[in-house]
């Protein structure tokens, strides 16, 4: 009642071993690919670290790096097993290790699947993190003299120019923040005083944006100030002007960029999962076929290879029974100690009563 039984003669076993050896080396290169992918993704995320509030999204590249390294090791072991499988004297030493190998290989496949799922699931968290990070960046844009924040201006400017975006959701975010430092404001001027008094927090707010929001593709020189005032500039209409500044918000631009990165790696990761699964299955067949051949009188004869010795249900019941036995074994010991301790206690009590019984006759 074995699962997916196949017959293997000597030649087929040799072919299987050779094919699996090649496949496992292919899997090693795939593991290296996954590792490099993880490193690349992590460096890209670290580059924009300053506009992200938390590092939850880093779990994706971290898992990729770990899985890549583990996969290299695991598949290298698989290739060694293949080399030894044709030699009856060397193969038995791998017996114990193979069970652990199967567990590790299955775990790697599951982790890779989890990575694919996570990269979609964490999009919301990424957006939240970017929203808060960008809001802080815009708020501290003017603080180029405060240690710890002095590079926010450069970071935000570079970000806006590289990703062709402006503000958090759009350019109007700059209207709500004072992005010109007080050091450069002439407080004797009437205009400045009016603006500062016009809002509750005494902030110098203006309907202008930094130069990094300017779109080079605009046909006219960039208009940065008095954006909402159509009369302030000749031949300018605020509502219909689209090319003057970048229209996208930086949060959207960065999210699109990172989602694009992770989506484009999706097919690669899925094919690596397939390769790893095929290595796993082929290794199981090789193990059972070679072990079956070694158990025969004539090792060169035909043997059977299977995935599971009994059916799925029976194997599951067997495994469950084994695990329960292991658990019971651990539980019985304290009960035994308690019983033997009670027995010892009784014995000492008896000894005491005997002593007590023998002492009065002495006195």
């Amino acid at each position, binding site marked *: 009642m074995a699962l997916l039984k196949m017959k293997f003669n000597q030649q087929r076993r040799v072919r299987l071993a050779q094919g699996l050896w090649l496949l496992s080396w292919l899997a090693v290169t795939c593991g290296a690919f996954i590792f490099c992918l993880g490193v690349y993704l992590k460096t890209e995320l670290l580059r924009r670290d300053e506009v992200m509030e938390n590092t939850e999204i880093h779990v994706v590249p971290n898992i990729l790096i770990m899985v890549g390294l583990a996969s290299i090791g695991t598949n290298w072991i698989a290739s060694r097993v293949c080399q030894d499988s044709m030699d009856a004297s060397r193969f038995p030493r791998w017996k114990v290790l193979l069970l652990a190998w199967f567990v590790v290989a299955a775990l790697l496949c599951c982790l890779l699947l989890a990575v694919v799922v996570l990269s979609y699931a964490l999009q919301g968290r990424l957006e939240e993190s970017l929203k808060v990070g960008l809001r802080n960046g815009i708020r501290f844009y003017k603080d180029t003299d405060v240690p710890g924040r002095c590079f926010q201006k450069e970071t935000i400017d570079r970000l806006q120019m590289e990703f062709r975006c402006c503000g958090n959701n759009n350019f109007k975010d700059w209207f709500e923040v004072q992005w010109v430092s007080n*050091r*450069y404001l002439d407080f004797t*001027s009437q205009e400045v005083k009016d603006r500062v008094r016009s809002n509750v927090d005494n902030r110098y707010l203006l309907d202008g944006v930094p*130069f990094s929001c300017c779109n080079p593709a605009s046909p*006219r*020189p960039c208009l940065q100030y008095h954006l909402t005032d159509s009369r302030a500039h000749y031949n300018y209409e605020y509502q219909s002007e689209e090319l003057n500044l970048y229209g996208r918000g930086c949060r959207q631009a960065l999210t699109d960029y990172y989602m694009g990165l992770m989506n484009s790696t999706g097919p690669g990761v899925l094919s690596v999962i397939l390769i790893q699964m095929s290595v796993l299955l082929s290794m199981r067949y090789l193990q059972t076929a070679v072990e079956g051949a070694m158990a025969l009188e004539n090792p060169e004869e035909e043997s059977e290879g299977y995935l599971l010795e009994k059916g799925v249900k029976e194997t599951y019941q067997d495994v469950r029974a084994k695990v329960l036995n292991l658990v019971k074994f651990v539980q019985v010991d304290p009960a035994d100690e308690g019983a033997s301790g009670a027995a010892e206690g009784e014995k000492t009590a008896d000894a005491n009563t005997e002593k007590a019984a023998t002492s009065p006759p002495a006195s």
Partner: protein
Amino acid sequence: MAVLKVKFTKTKRDKLAQVLWILNWISVVTGAILFSLGTFLKVELNKRGELMSERDVQYVPNTLIAVGLIACAINFLGGKICYDCVDTAKFLRWKVVLLPYTACTFFFTFCVLVGALMCYSMHWELEEALNLGLTQAMRFYKDTDTPGRCFLKRTLDILQIEFQCCGNNGYRDWFQIQWISNRYLDMSKKEVIDRLRSNVEGKYLMDGVPFSCCNLNSPRPCIQQQITNNSAHYNYEHQTEELNLWMTGCRQALLEYYTHIMQSVGLTVLITWLFELSVLTGVRYLQTSLENVLRQGDPNSDSDGWLLETSLMETARTNLSIIKNLGKNNQIDAGHNRDPNVDVPSTSKAHYGPDNVPPKHNTEG
């Protein structure tokens, strides 16, 4: 009197052939690298093609591409020849080709050296081209409605942002041209009319620069307009302000960028040239030693290899006379004022006997 004569045993010849085989394959690889470097340079020059005026700088990447391809071909053939030279039987196939091949490699090596020198000489041509090209581009910055020039604004803005530069020599170049189109100037305003009248050509000149000149590292928001007017901005001194705008000129920035590429490319070409030279020397030795072996008849014997059979002067003289005689092959020798119809007896000293020798009779039998 051979130049640099070396004695070759059979094993030495075989080893030389093997080493040359490896060297030839390395040279194929360097030829491929040269080809890709030439293509890269061509692409880079074309990317900024709008900013360079009509100077012929394309000849450098074209030469590199051609040299790379020819190097691959010549060294591939050389590898094949050297591989076959170990076996004397196979060598006979290539015997005729070997001398012309050596001559071709000699001229080709010379071409490689010329290519390397061209890389370093491109600097001056490029500077001229960039100077003129950037001046033109800045002049047409405002013409975003003229077909053929509508993308110059975008190109120049992106260039200034990417290379962190401003203007041709510096930001003051923008003060001398009108970079705001008349479409966006309110001609009814007095200020605009005053500015237009203030210079001979009626241009709207201002002491302002486009936004792409703004320096990212400046601690204060960028000051683009009224740059030379200290009183127009609070806490601002035009003479000491260095971080506000990019200080480098774009011609300087682009020239440095291209010079850097050219130096790396030139270095690679020089290394290729050294490889080619060593291959050439090895092939020449191999050719002469194998020919001498064939002359001696025994393929396993020792033979001499040399660079030139006689000294340099004599080789030059012989070659020149060969070239002269090649031209004379079809000409009748009328140089000694002789009538070609007159029979001049032969002056040869060798006497082979009379012409009418009676046949030998076989008296026996």
